[in-house]
């Protein structure tokens, strides 16, 4: 009994540490302490679980923890900062998969006590499996393993029918007096297919919202399986994450002015529409771009996913420092959903050493574009598309954007003439005061740096 008490007390402490940890992570000052606290809670909970009376398969357990833990630890250490979004997606998917697997073990044991337990186990299995396969697809897309947008004919009808059939199988499991292995197996396959099919057509700026949504899903699944296993620490940690993740998802969706239902059922590229854009794109060389910025008094830099892909954040900061030495005021404007996760750009710029004071949110900076001599857009697209303000037929109409087009001059660093990830034409690129600097952000900014240096001598 003393051991049982020790285990319960440890789970209790772990739950407190998780909540304190999340609380700490919501402020920049205490963020690092927050993750350490949560980490201590995790180690504590894991270690005492080994003491649980009557546990078998200890060797298997140690191997599984060692294998999964070490592989994830090493891959997490080695991945480039720019690839973080897909790493979060894949680790999250694994959590969802674990929750679904726990339910599967319980079904295989055939010892479900009561309808409520079976119901929650089934719900957790469904949500966890959807989160697993959906996150794997999200990972594959961001990693570039899978083509960016893939749409089935009558996608929404397929989604709805598949979801209904899966829920139907789930209901049959809950109602059935005994666990039917065939039924359970079919249910898991359906749930996995459902997650993948829902995620396939989603792309562009919607990706971060979907990753966040699956994060909330996994939390819920973990909470439900915690109830099935009778471990309050799992319930608390899971539901806290489920609620926090839901709120975070809402904040992101709001920043894009796209309801979650639109994100899931009206993919941006497929939404089509939008007026045709008149005019042509006017190119500029690295030297002219350098001169425009070198002799400006204020430059606002708008980074986007293109900067992340090229890993150009260090070059961008180097250029900013050179410009500042020459007396130019340089600041960064970050759209809430720039990149593939909210705050993605903040993380990258922080890595390059850009101080907080130079980074501004949409509301803080939008009025300043009118006073800027140059707005430098690096690999960003939808977040600076003025059609969102003016063109009611555009799929992104109503999304708050950075008003880069209001600046005296706009320089856009872009790889080519294409429409980018979401497939929407960008009126900004065709404006009279816009010049395009073609090339990867890394190489284009590198050339600009050379020219700025030459001018400063």
């Amino acid at each position, binding site marked *: 009994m003393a051991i049982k008490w020790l285990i319960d007390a440890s789970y209790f402490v772990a739950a407190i540490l998780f909540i304190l940890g999340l609380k700490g992570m919501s402020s920049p000052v205490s963020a690092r302490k927050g993750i350490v606290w949560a980490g201590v809670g995790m180690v504590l909970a894991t270690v005492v679980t080994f003491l649980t009376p009557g546990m078998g398969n200890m060797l298997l357990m140690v191997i599984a923890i*060692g*294998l999964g833990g070490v592989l994830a630890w090493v891959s997490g250490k080695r991945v480039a900062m720019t690839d973080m979004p897909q790493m979060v997606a894949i680790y999250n998917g694994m959590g969802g998969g674990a929750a679904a697997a726990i339910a599967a073990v319980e079904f295989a044991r055939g010892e479900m006590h009561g309808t409520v337990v079976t119901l929650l186990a089934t719900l957790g299995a469904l949500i966890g499996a959807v989160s697993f396969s959906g996150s794997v697809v999200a990972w594959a897309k961001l990693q570039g393993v899978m083509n960016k947008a893939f749409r089935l004919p009558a996608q929404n009808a397929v989604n709805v029918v598949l979801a209904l059939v899966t829920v139907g199988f789930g209901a049959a499991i809950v109602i059935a007096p005994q666990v039917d292995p065939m039924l359970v197996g079919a249910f898991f396959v359906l749930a996995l297919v459902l997650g993948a099919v829902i995620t396939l057509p989603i792309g562009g700026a919607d990706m971060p919202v979907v990753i966040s949504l699956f994060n909330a899903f996994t939390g819920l699944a973990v909470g439900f399986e915690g109830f099935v296993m009778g471990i309050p620490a799992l319930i608390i940690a899971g539901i806290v994450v489920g609620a926090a993740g839901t709120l975070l998802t809402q904040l992101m969706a709001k920043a894009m002015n796209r309801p979650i239902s639109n994100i899931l059922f009206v993919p941006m590229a497929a939404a089509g529409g939008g007026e045709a854009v008149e005019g042509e794109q006017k190119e500029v060389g690295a030297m002219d771009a350098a001169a425009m910025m070198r002799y400006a008094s204020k430059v606002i830099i708008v980074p986007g996913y293109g900067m992340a892909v090229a890993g150009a954040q260090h070059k961008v900061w180097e250029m900013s420092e050179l410009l500042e030495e020459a007396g130019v005021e340089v600041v960064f404007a970050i759209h809430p959903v720039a990149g593939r996760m909210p705050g993605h750009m903040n993380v990258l710029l922080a890595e390059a050493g850009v101080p907080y004071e130079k980074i501004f949110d949409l509301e803080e900076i939008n009025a300043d574009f009118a006073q800027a001599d140059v707005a430098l857009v690096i690999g960003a697209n939808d977040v600076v598309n003025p059609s969102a303000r003016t063109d009611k037929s555009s799929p992104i109409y109503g999304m708050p954007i950075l008003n880069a087009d209001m600046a005296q001059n706009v320089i856009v660093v872009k790889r080519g003439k294409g429409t980018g990830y979401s497939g929407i034409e960008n009126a900004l690129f065709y404006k009279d005061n816009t010049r395009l600097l073609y090339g990867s952000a890394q190489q284009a900014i590198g050339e600009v740096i050379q020219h700025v240096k030459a001018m400063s001598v």
Partner: protein
Amino acid sequence: MDGMLALYIFMLAAFTGYEVISRVPVILHTPLMSGSNFVHGVVLVGGMIALGQAETPLEQAIGFVAVLLGAANAAGGYVVTERMLAMFKSKEKN
């Protein structure tokens, strides 16, 4: 576990999660998503108990997968979050 009691835990935990996040600056959205991703890695504990009770080879195999995935969620989630937050610390020193 008592169903009613669990319902109360659900409710209180949901409010806690909502409150904890409600005033977070945009700059921390990504680390926070990653951090909450780490926290649900506690599913590892559930996986361990499921595997600990597993008897048939099928149960053992699924339990093994649960523990493997749970451990990867926890370890990967921690490393990635720590790396993101480490960058905020280095700046405080400057």
